[in-house]
Structures are given as structure tokens and as C-alpha cells.
């Protein structure tokens, strides 16, 4: 807990009602969507970049780290304080400052909820493309910090492809713009390293995002397969044929069974896998594209392909996908959600391996993921209260991550490294690679000041944070999905 003097100083910056310091109130801020816990010393809710800057300066004088937090929906412990400090919660900076429809950009504050932006944009016929599954709750500041993805990133790219500029507070309290509204700005692209830096380089106070026109027409297809291999084959064939759907998602048998019990989405309980595929574009061509997708699915063995044309029909096909994680949450008290990417052609092989790992450790594994991107989300339901289960589930998770890396993939496609995967970083990066990344942190002079204990394995950098056994596990809200 923070001492009285610190609280008074923080109150002088942000106002009395914007500082939280009572231990029972702080509990709300000790977690995100993982099982990690860590109490901040105090929480502030600033309303301007100037306030953030003053808080950062105060923290620096007192030798306290600063941890930025959005809505706390992160899936890698990115917003969990590892060493106390002052948490800056951005939810009171949630305004849309400007929508420039003509130039297809918007200037927003970091606390703005992702879906609120797209809702505000719809009357201009525009949208913000990255749609993380928690988009009803997650904030754009958090999206930028984690370089968030989402189902529709297959066609449109992830957060970094949609951010033009950032106003940030640096570790010395300076407020500076990185990038801006216009393209190809001379000098180093400092915006890119900050995107996905998980709050360790700078605190984001304004974001300029790129907007896209809403598609004229959209068709959703649901293809049902008796065998997982057939579904994986359909994914590679669709991508390899040069068809680029807007979204291409896969759900496996265990997921479908859970979904049927919870959502009644009409999935057959005896099928091994379904693919949910969305094509977008001009009225004149989406029909053809949908037809091509259907042909591929049938040729690879789909036993049924359902097509949704109207918003209502499409919504119904998506219902199972959107309800999947919440439904899986009913299977067990706790959950371990994994996130890794493999080359798309390696999906069948890696999926086989994932199920084998589950069998070996005695866990059922439910896969629901962005198949078109090769971005896997194996989910392991388990009971945290059983002794030894957390360790076992972590071991299984590590083996699955290893499978991804061995297939030429990576340890995180969209959830971030956070606290969970620091030690896996060495599987894909050498000491020289990690040291090169650290040079950026040194240049930003943010090392122990902003969100310490994240991303880097312990021997690199400061070295003093050594969190104990960890797991990205938590009982899930009905709204949750990856």
C-alpha cells in the first residue's frame, strides 16, 4: 500500500477521486484475464497526457515503476504489476477526438473501447479493422500495447498495420508524438517498436488509427468435417489457391460439444471440426468467392457447407464461435489458453501433436482458433484446486509451445509475451537477438520504470524479477473469446 505522502502527491496531480489506495479497492487491479496476481501500490485514473506525465515524473523521483492498464482483458499478464508501483488506468481517457472520414483516420484516446470506435464509425461507412475477441471490453491503448489481432486480421493485418501515430509519455515524463497523420515520415519509425511493447517503453496517451471502408457485401460459410485433417487440408488449400477470406476460423470437436450445450448453435456433435469462413468485397464477386470456398471444402471432404447471406443468418453461424470460450469455461473451474503461430501448411501436423500432448498429460484439449493465419489457441480445462494440476498444465503448455517453435512458428501470435512466456523467448531468439531488443529499451530509458518483469527472460536486462510458476488460467466470463 502506498504511504500517505505519495497518495497526497498523486491526488494533487489527478484529483482526490482519481487515486485508489485502500487495500480492498486495489484488489480489483491485481489481475487481468490470466491467473496472475500482483498488487499495485496505488492506482491513478488520469484524464490527460499532462497528468500521466506528472505521475511518471513523480514515480521516477520515488523510484517506483509505472504500469499502464486498459480494461484488463490481456491474456499474458501484461498489465499485472510484478513489483508494486503506480498503476495508471486509462479508462477515463476514452474520447474519440477526431474522425476524419475523408482521409480515413481517427484520433482517439487510449481508454476507448475497441467496439465503441467501430460503432461510432459505422455511420461514415467506415470501420477499424482489428477486432480482438474481447472487443466489447478491451481498449485501443491495450490493443496497441499488445499489438492485438482478431479473426478479421487474416485479410486486414494486425494492430500495427492500422496505427499511424502515437502520442506517448516517455520515462522522463516528456510527451512526444511518434509517427503522425501523414505517411512516410522521415527518420526512424519509432511507432513500430512501441506497438506491441506491452507497456515497457512508453505510455500511450493518444492514437491515430487508419480506417477502412465497410465492405459492400459479406458472406459467411460454415463447413462441417468428419475429420480434423480434412478441415486443416481445406485451410491450406483455400489459402494456397489464392483465395483470401476476411476470416477463417476453426473449432474442434470438444469445443463444438461445449458450444452445443451452452449456446445451441446447431453444430453436429459427431463432427470432428468446423470451419467458419467469411468472404467480403463487392456484391458482384463475393458470391463467386463463396462458391470457390465451398468447392474447396467439399473437395477436401466437408460433409455439409452452410451459407449465411443475411446479417441474421451470418450472426447465427458466428454465434457458436463467439460463444466458444465462454462455453468451454463451463467444462472446468480453470483454463489455460495458449497462443502460438505456425506456418499454415504445418497446421495438420501441429494439431496432431497438440492432441498427443493432451493425452500424454491426461488433459482434454479444445482448439478454437484463427486457422487462416496459422494462429493456434489450444485451451486446456483443468482444476486449479487439485494439487499438482497447475504444474502439469504448465508442462503441457510448454510442450505445445515447443511444437509450434519446432514447426517454424512462434510463441505468441497475438496475446503477447507478458509474464507467461519470458522464458520461452530463448527458444526463438539468441542472446544477441534479445540484446538488440534491449537496446531499444535502453534508448527509451524505460527499463525498470515502465512495467518491469515483462517480455525478457530474467538473465537479460535487469534480472531482478523472477516470478514464480505462472499460468494463463482463469475461469472465464460468458463473453470471453480468443
Amino acid at each position, binding site marked *: 500500500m502506498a504511504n500517505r505522502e505519495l497518495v497526497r502527491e498523486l491526488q494533487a496531480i489527478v484529483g482526490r477521486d482519481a487515486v485508489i489506495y485502500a487495500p480492498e479497492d486495489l484488489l480489483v487491479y491485481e489481475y487481468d484475464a490470466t491467473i496472475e496476481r500482483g498488487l499495485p501500490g496505488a492506482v491513478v485514473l488520469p484524464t490527460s497526457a499532462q497528468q500521466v506525465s506528472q505521475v511518471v515524473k513523480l514515480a521516477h523521483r520515488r523510484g517506483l515503476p509505472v504500469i499502464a492498464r486498459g480494461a484488463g482483458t490481456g491474456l499474458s499478464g501484461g498489465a499485472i504489476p510484478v513489483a508494486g508501483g503506480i498503476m495508471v488506468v486509462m479508462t477515463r481517457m476514452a474520447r474519440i477526438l477526431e474522425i476524419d472520414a475523408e482521409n480515413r483516420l481517427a484520433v482517439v484516446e487510449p481508454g476507448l473501447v475497441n467496439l465503441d470506435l467501430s460503432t461510432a464509425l459505422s455511420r461514415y461507412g467506415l470501420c477499424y479493422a482489428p477486432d480482438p475477441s474481447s472487443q466489447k471490453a478491451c481498449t485501443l491503448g491495450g490493443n496497441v500495447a499488445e499489438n492485438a489481432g482478431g479473426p478479421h486480421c487474416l485479410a486486414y493485418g494486425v494492430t*500495427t498495420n492500422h496505427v499511424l501515430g502515437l502520442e506517448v509519455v516517455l520515462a522522463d515524463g516528456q510527451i512526444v*508524438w511518434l509517427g503522425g497523420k501523414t505517411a512516410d515520415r522521415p527518420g526512424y*519509425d*519509432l511507432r*513500430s517498436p512501441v506497438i506491441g511493447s506491452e507497456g515497457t517503453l512508453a505510455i500511450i496517451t493518444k492514437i491515430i488509427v487508419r480506417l477502412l*471502408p465497410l465492405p459492400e457485401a459479406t458472406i459467411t460459410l460454415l463447413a462441417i468435417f468428419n475429420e480434423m485433417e480434412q478441415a486443416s487440408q481445406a485451410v491450406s488449400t483455400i489459402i494456397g489457391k489464392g483465395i483470401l477470406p476476411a476470416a477463417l476460423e476453426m473449432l474442434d470437436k470438444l469445443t463444438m460439444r461445449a458450444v452445443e450445450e451452452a449456446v445451441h448453435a446447431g453444430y453436429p456433435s459427431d463432427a470432428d471440426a468446423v470451419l467458419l469462413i467469411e468472404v467480403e468485397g463487392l456484391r458482384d*464477386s463475393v458470391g463467386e468467392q463463396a462458391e470457390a470456398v465451398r468447392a474447396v471444402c467439399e473437395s477436401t471432404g466437408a460433409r455439409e457447407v452452410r451459407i449465411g447471406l443475411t446479417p441474421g443468418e451470418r450472426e447465427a453461424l458466428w454465434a457458436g464461435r463467439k460463444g466458444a470460450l465462454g462455453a468451454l469455461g463451463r467444462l472446468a473451474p480453470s483454463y489455460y489458453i495458449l497462443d502460438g503461430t505456425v506456418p*499454415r501448411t504445418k497446421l495438420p501436423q501441429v494439431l496432431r501433436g497438440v492432441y498427443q500432448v493432451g493425452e500424454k498429460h491426461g488433459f482434454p484439449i479444445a482448439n478454437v482458433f484463427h486457422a487462416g493465419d496459422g494462429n493456434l489457441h489450444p485451451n486446456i480445462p483443468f482444476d486449479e484446486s487439485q494439487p499438482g494440476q497447475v504444474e502439469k498444465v504448465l508442462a503441457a503448455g510448454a510442450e505445445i509451445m515447443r511444437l509450434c517453435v519446432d514447426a517454424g512458428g512462434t510463441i505468441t501470435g497475438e496475446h503477447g509475451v507478458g509474464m507467461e512466456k519470458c522464458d520461452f*523467448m530463448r527458444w526463438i531468439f539468441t542472446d544477441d537477438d534479445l540484446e538488440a531488443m534491449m537496446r531499444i529499451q535502453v534508448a527509451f530509458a524505460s527499463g525498470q520504470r515502465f512495467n518491469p518483469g515483462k517480455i525478457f527472460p530474467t538473465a537479460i536486462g535487469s534480472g531482478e524479477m523472477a516470478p514464480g510458476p505462472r499460468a494463463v488460467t482463469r475461469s472465464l466470463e460468458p463473453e470471453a473469446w480468443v
Partner: protein
Amino acid sequence: LVKESLLHNLLESTLDSERVFPRQEAASYAVDGVVPQVVALPATVEEVAAVMCLASREDAAVIPWGGGTAMGLGNTPHRYDIALCLSHLNQVVEYEPADVTATVQAGKTLADFQRHLAEHGQVLALDPPLGQETTIGGILAVNASGPSRHAYGTARDLILGIRAVQADGRIIKAGGRVVKNVAGYDLTRLFIGSLGSLGIIVEAAFRLAPLPRAERTAVVFLPSAQEAWRFVAQTANLSLRAVELLNAVALRQIATVGEAAEDGYALVLAVAGEPTAVERSLKEIGELSRRAAAASLATVVESAQDRLWQAIASLARPSPSGATLVCKAAVLPSQVPALSQQIETTGRELGLEPLVVSHLTAGIVYSAWPSPQDEGVQRALDLTTTLRQAVAGLGGSLVVEACPLALKEKIDVWGEPAADFPLMRRIKEQFDPQGILNPGRFLGRL
């Protein structure tokens, strides 16, 4: 200072002597008139690393060299000892068509790479100037782009990961080969556009795109840039790969299509995608031009399209005589008409006819000005100052991409550093503490 012969001898002991040339044979590797002491042509990534180790030990300044198509870009180098030519690193490292990704070495020319990909109906969706000669590494170093950026963005939107050799010779990788990856800081995009001043990119992995199944080109002639912008605003949903705006001078240079009004503009549209989408888009463009004031429309013969687009992509290249001032302005797309107008007005006042070509929807406006060599530097300086003021007033940036050498002594070709510059300087100091990579050529003479 490094002894010339010493450096040559040391390099010869590192590389095959056939791949090391002394100063006498290095004239074609001059940058802004500065000739290097020695040219090195490493054949492997490890050899690049060995050359950098040596350069770092001997404190020798290195300029990486790809296709040599953009060596006039940047400020005059403070010093220049070794030309590090990457043309021998020209292999496709990994290509799995079904993944629609590929990894390629930095010295491969874009044209070579595209030929390889086209065999599988795929393309790296970048079309910078001089695609025949320009290399992958060169494109990344200057973040080169072309008309296709309308649909595909720039290299930062297509890159998946890189390998690079650092100033001290250590080899690093960043990113990876999969299409979604958020592990660690994004060094990949930081290195793009850094003009080889942070490290030497030796390998890059890209997301590819399927070749469009159909492509047609439409040219709409409009009386003003403003009319062109209004026209484009109505095409948001159409299946367009490129939207280029050419003034009459630019149009005359490619001169394969139609006739432009004396002071009019040509909007050149690449319509690409599924055949039905192309057909529908062309139809709509036709209807829009009938409705637009004083517009006429031409469709380019299919067999002439590729050549036309290559010509457009290379329009704003400095003339081989070097007697040109080329400026690249970046403003908001909606400001392109006003800026184009201002450029034309400035031209008329000076009795000059600038070539103006824009990536309209990206807000990028190139202007190329004839600048006879017998003339002093003053006019180029005045012009640059006028354009810089105009662009600054719009909140944009202006880079002088080519100019008489004397102008480089008077200005920073990248413009004035902004509030983020101290951070850039610290980045440079971290990655190249000795200042041996392209010293002096980048923004703020870093």
C-alpha cells in the same frame, strides 16, 4: 584514419580476393562524389558479418549497396571507407507457395524474385521505381514503395521478419516467418526505412499475395486535381490496386495514352481482382466519368499495361544527367490537390514546368524540377524552401530525393528533425555506437 592499403589487405584475408576491389576500381560506387577505399562483395551472411567485424575493429565507415538505384538519397556521407555490395546474396532462402510466404536474401533484385513467385501465381506486392535493378535490401532500407501501396500498403505491411548484421558484426534476427507474431520488440519495422544506419538487412521474410485474376487500367482526364480527388472519393468500394494522379508534364512523359488538356490531370486507376469485380468497377468508373465535369475516359490496351505501370512507378526518378531536383512530399490525401496546385503555381512563377505525380490516396506527391547544371544552387534552394513551407503549413513532410550536390551542403535533405529526434539519436547510438554505418546520411546527419 584507416590506411587504404591496410583495409584492402585485411579484406582480402577475409573474402576471396576476386571479391575485393581497390579504390582505383571503385569509382562506380561513389556516393555524392565520395569514392570508397575499397569495395567488398561478400557471398554469404557470415562474410557480411566478417566484413562488419573488421570495419568495426578498424573504425572504417561502411555504406551498404544493393542495386544502387537510390544512392543519391540522403545527406552527403561524413566518411566512406567500404562499399559493402550485397549483390551476391541473391538466393531465395525458403518458399512454400501454400503458406503464401517467402524468405529471400537482401541482394536479390525485385524483378528476379517476382519472376520466381509468378511461377506459382504469387507476387510480393511492392512496385517501387526501377524494379528491374532495385534489390530487396535496398527497398527495405529506403522503405521504397509504388502505386500498389493503395491496396497493399508498404514494406512495413508485408514484412514478417528479418536477419541483419549489426555494426559490430553480430548477426541478429527479428520477427519470424509466420504471418502473426508478437514476440518481442518490433525491430523489423524499425529497420525498414532506416537507410542501413542501424544494421545491414541480409534476409527478409514476406507475406505474399496471389496475383490478381484480372487487371485493367483506366485513365480519367480531369480539369483539376480537386476534381480528381472528388472522383476518387466515390470509388472507395471499388476493386482498385493503384490510384495515381499525373499532371500534364508527367502524362506527356509516358505518352502512351490519350490527350490531356494543357493544364489538366490524369487519374490512372489500376482495377484488379476477381474478373467480376473488375468488370463492375470499370463500369462504375465509366459512369462516374460521364457524370464528372469535363472528364474523358480511356482504357489502356491490356498488352501495354505492365509497361505503363512500370513507367508510372519510375516517373519521378531523377534524369540520368543528374540535372534534376526531385522532392517527395507527404500530406493528408485530401490536401494533395491544394499542394499540386501550389507546385504548379510555383512552377509558372519561375517559368518552369515541374512533373507532378502522386500516390493520391497515400498523400504522397512527387515533383521533379528541371535544374540546369550551369545554374547556381540558389534556385534549387529557393524552390526547396518554398515547397517545405507549403508542406509544413499542411502538417506534412518533404524529403529532397535528388538534387544538385551543392544543395546538400546547405540543407538536410530529410527536413528539420522534430521533437522525437533525441530518441532517434539514442537509438542510433545504441545500434551503431561508433557511427560506422552510413555516417551522416540519415535525418539530422545521424
